[in-house]
């Protein structure tokens, strides 16, 4: 287990390194921040001077080298636009994004598990049908559209839930639904097919033959088995949540990394883009490690085997 985790951690580190190169190169391709930074009537010499200050006159690979070295020491450079350390800007916003992603994921799992289980148990029943339609709808609507409709219905018309802000549980509901609806379909499918497999397995048959109540068989013995494939995919879904946060945060005025990065892209604020995207990557790698760790907990075979 530990060797496995160490190996995964190394692979994660390589991923992050690779991601940092990609992010750095592409963001450098995307235009000159100086001209956005300075007023229209700034003089040529001021432009040159500013460019030197930010090291934008050096070759790309030198810029990357310097950047990577500093980044390792926690210095991602200063935001051109905010004139503060990019790292601070990102780290201050990271918890809100994690919060949103976690609640989005919780929403999707909270729907997908019962629907997946019930539709496996009562194949073709009404829960199977309704659940499947609900799941498929989430996979067929653009996130921002869902977000707007949620605000229109639940905030403006019904006035049940706040449309923006964060802090209380009520605030996270609409953004979490907008974010978490999309992966419900895929997760339901995973749970459903895993449950179908498990319910058809010898050990479930044995449990039944030994008189275990069906309720326990489904929700306890089978579900823990069926949770493993879902769990292995949770890292991927968490990444999807982080990606979706870029849109959802913008709609719900959520003070997270996604919105910060989107705006930084528009203003070509490289340090913020780099730090922001890199930290979402790091978050993704970490969440995968966490997943590796956690399904060791659920599935003892994995705990011992690797």
């Amino acid at each position, binding site marked *: 287990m530990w060797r496995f985790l160490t190996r995964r951690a190394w692979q994660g580190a390589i991923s992050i390194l690779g991601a940092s190169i990609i992010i750095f190169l592409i963001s450098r391709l*995307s*235009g*000159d921040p100086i*001209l*956005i*930074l*300075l*007023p*229209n*009537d*700034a*003089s*040529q*010499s*001021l*432009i040159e*001077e500013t460019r030197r200050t930010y090291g934008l006159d050096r070759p790309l690979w030198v810029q990357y080298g310097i950047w990577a070295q500093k980044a390792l020491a926690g210095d991602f450079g200063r935001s051109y*636009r*905010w*004139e*503060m350390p990019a790292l601070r*800007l990102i780290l*201050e*916003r990271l918890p809100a994004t994690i919060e949103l992603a976690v609640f989005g994921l919780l929403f999707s799992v909270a729907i997908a598990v019962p629907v997946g289980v019930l539709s496996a148990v009562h194949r073709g029943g009404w829960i199977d049908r309704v659940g499947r339609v609900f799941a498929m709808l989430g996979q067929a609507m653009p996130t921002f559209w869902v977000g*707007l409709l949620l*605000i*229109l219905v639940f*905030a*403006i018309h019904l*006035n049940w839930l*706040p*449309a*923006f*802000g*964060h802090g209380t549980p009520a605030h996270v509901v609409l953004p979490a639904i907008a974010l978490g609806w999309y992966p419900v379909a895929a997760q339901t499918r995973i749970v459903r097919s895993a449950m179908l497999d498990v319910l058809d397995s010898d050990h479930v048959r044995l449990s039944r033959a030994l008189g275990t109540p069906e309720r326990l068989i489904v929700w306890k013995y089978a579900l823990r088995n069926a949770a493993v494939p879902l769990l292995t995919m949770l890292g991927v879904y968490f990444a999807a949540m982080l990606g979706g946060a870029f849109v959802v945060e*913008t*709609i*719900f*005025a959520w*003070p*997270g990394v996604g*919105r*910060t990065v989107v705006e930084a*892209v*528009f*203003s*070509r604020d490289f340090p913020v883009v780099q730090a922001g995207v890199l930290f979402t990557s790091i978050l993704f790698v970490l969440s995968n490690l966490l997943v590796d760790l956690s399904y060791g907990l659920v599935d003892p075979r994995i705990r011992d085997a690797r």
Partner: protein
Amino acid sequence: MKTWITALTLASLAALPTAAPAQAPAQTPATGTLSIGFGAEAVMMDPSRSAAGVDQYFFGQMIEQLTRTDPKLETINWLAESWTLTQDGGKPVITVKLRPGVKFHTGDPMTAEDFEFAYERQRDPKISKWPHLLAAVEKFEVVDSLTFRVHFKEGDGSFTSGNLILWALPKRHLQKVGDEEFARAPVGTGPWKFVSRTIKDELRLTAFDDYWNKEHRPTVKNLVVKIIPEDLTRVAAFKTGAIDWIDAVPPAMVEEFRKMPGVKTGSFVAPNNMYIAMDAVDKTSKFHDVRVRQALAHAIDVDAIISKVLFGQGERYVQVGRGSLGFDADLKPYPYDPRKARDLLRQAGYPNGFEVPCYNLTTPREPYQKEVGEAYFAYATAVGIRCRVQGQEYGTWITFGRRDRQGHIDGLYSNMWGHGLPGDPGTPWAGHVHSYVRGEGWGITSVHDDPELNAMIRELKRTMDLDQRADLIKKIARLKQERVAGGLPTYRPVVTLAWRDKVTFTPWPSPGFWRGMQEIGLKQ
């Protein structure tokens, strides 16, 4: 001082309690908390380091200038008790007498040394983004603790038209805490004191008890400014009562807001001027010919665009907006006349019209900008100036017309120029009407080259006397209009604010935008 013509189109303004006496005398300290919602967020809160106009949304509530614009768009002395413009050996000198008894939030009194400090900071390219605004200044002279003089090498109209440029910065405090901390927690002489800020979320302010202006001041203790960029979300926040004052009501919803019971609205012209740039530099460009430019001017029904696309949330302007320095009520726009446009094209030698690339901004900076652009180009196409429309997102758009980056753009290009309120077109014209001169700051986005206009704009730059400026601006505007030079002006966006009845609010420009929280409070 010159009194501006203040003829806002807006009936709502007349209904505002502008003339009402101060509601809360200093004796009764303000109480309560008010939450308001902005659509855009300031970035930098240090005036000298600020690069974007939107920054004033925040620091404009805390830090003040020598003069400012009042709700009737009249420029009034503010931190300056008075100022005079004199000549010293043919060179202009401005003498400013400061208002006594003004205190910073730290309790320090405001003195001429603070302005000297602000001047030095503004001049320093390592700190300031705007050192060029002081390029014409020869030296800064402190006369006594409440008097200073600014000596000019040559005239600089942007100084007088720009509220004397300088912001009151607390020298002692700023030197103590440093630039970084000051930008995090700014200190000024303004009605609001900084409490805290969460980027992308909110700014918290508290009323400054020792504020010098006892008449025009907030009557609520705490102000929470929420940042909600998405239109529908901001509207939802207002409707659900999470905020009681809302910035930038989406144009499509203005009517609905006006009818909402218990809600007041106010609509104001924004200090932004939309126009269509066209390439008149290149000899081979079709728009080099004034007849083609005039054809374009006749081809576009700006009034229809304002009423349909903008839901009326726009104001037609000819060359200089109503209320701005040099506004000329007699100057009329080219009438919408597609037949005349076709005639002009025929005279110019294009009986069958021609194709041309047309660039449009797709990430709206002002509401419906993309749709407006589409409408422009559709109208142009209808008379034979057939547009091949190309969309551009904000990041590309903002550097797109820069002459230092590209030779010059071809074809048509939806663009805008901004200034403060009430506004002075001098500096923007220097940027997009005067021809491009490499390295000197002239014509940085210009695709025009008219020696006569160039000379007049340079003269305008040197002219500091506001009456003289106004006359000169009118002259330039007429010529510019006749020749359709430096683009075709279209409209100025109108911004609508709304607040609940329990809020007392008098809109003050802040100074470049209608979001000054100079007089806001809760009814007791």
